[in-house]
């Protein structure tokens, strides 16, 4: 309820929504280890081709304004075999030379972080990041919302649509 700061928080607190999909694709891209400077450029070149499905709407409007954070991985690659605190050792877990290893940042439900007990359908600005440009509701795997909150969120969005606070579909 009392959470006007929900849209502002995500860049810092909530992890990127689409980070998982591109991370897998670009993992194969050869890149010199211990070269953090090279990471951003290669990441950017890899992102458009690597994220075919989620790219168009997610980039511009999704909750992940942070977007793609490819340069996280190499920076801690050579030094830290202790394992990242937040990163789970996925399929490409063990560090190999010449391969980029990305820490898949764990997505956290934004409503759980803010301890939201009721998602208000009247606050369209809170709901807006969870719909695509075309008006579709973003799936849980993109936003990281937990099952319970996604359930509430869906209801709230549908109510907001009914009273013209949110669009059913894009116009034109």
């Amino acid at each position, binding site marked *: 309820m009392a959470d006007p700061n929900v849209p502002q928080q995500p860049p810092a607190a909530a992890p990127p929504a689409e980070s998982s999909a591109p991370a897998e694709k670009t993992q194969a891209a050869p890149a010199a280890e211990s070269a953090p400077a090279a990471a951003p450029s290669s990441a950017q070149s890899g992102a458009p081709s690597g994220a075919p499905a989620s790219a168009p709407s997610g980039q511009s409007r999704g909750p992940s304004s942070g977007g793609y954070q490819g340069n996280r991985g190499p920076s*801690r690659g050579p*030094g830290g075999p202790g394992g990242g605190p937040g990163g789970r050792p996925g399929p490409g877990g063990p560090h190999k030379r010449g391969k980029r290893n990305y820490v898949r940042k764990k997505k956290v439900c934004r409503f759980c972080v803010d301890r939201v*007990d009721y998602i208000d359908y009247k606050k369209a600005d809170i709901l807006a990041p969870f719909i695509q440009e075309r008006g579709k509701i973003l799936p849980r795997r993109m936003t990281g919302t937990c099952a319970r909150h996604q359930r509430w969120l869906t209801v709230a969005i549908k109510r907001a649509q009914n009273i013209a606070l949110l669009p059913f579909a894009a*116009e034109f």
Partner: protein
Amino acid sequence: MEERLYDLIFICRPDTPEAEVDKLIATLEHTVADKSAKIEKIEKWGRKRMAYRVRKLREGFYVYMSIRSNHGELIKELERRLKVADPVIKYLTIRIDEEMKRQQKLAKHRERRAARRPRKPAPASAPPAGEQTASAAG
């Protein structure tokens, strides 16, 4: 019948004079009072842009009411009035008391849990800090 809480939102044409909106609100209030229900809140949100066109209009004058009633007929009557009223282009009534009950329950639950063990958030906040130092080092 137990008491129920409803949200009622209606949208008027943007060119309606405010006096007419007030009149409409007054008649609704009167109807509510007739059925011995209670209006908890009335908010005039004013002219807002709608997310899509309704009756070829892009803007609308939003009015929000919160009504506590134990008489379902009241909602029927209110909706009938809104349907008949000329300036109203859209309305929505939602029953929300069950969700409010759930919210209160969850809040109470959380409070109780927080009281039982106060030092839960400390370990949760530690990992992000560690990660940041790791990335800074590399």
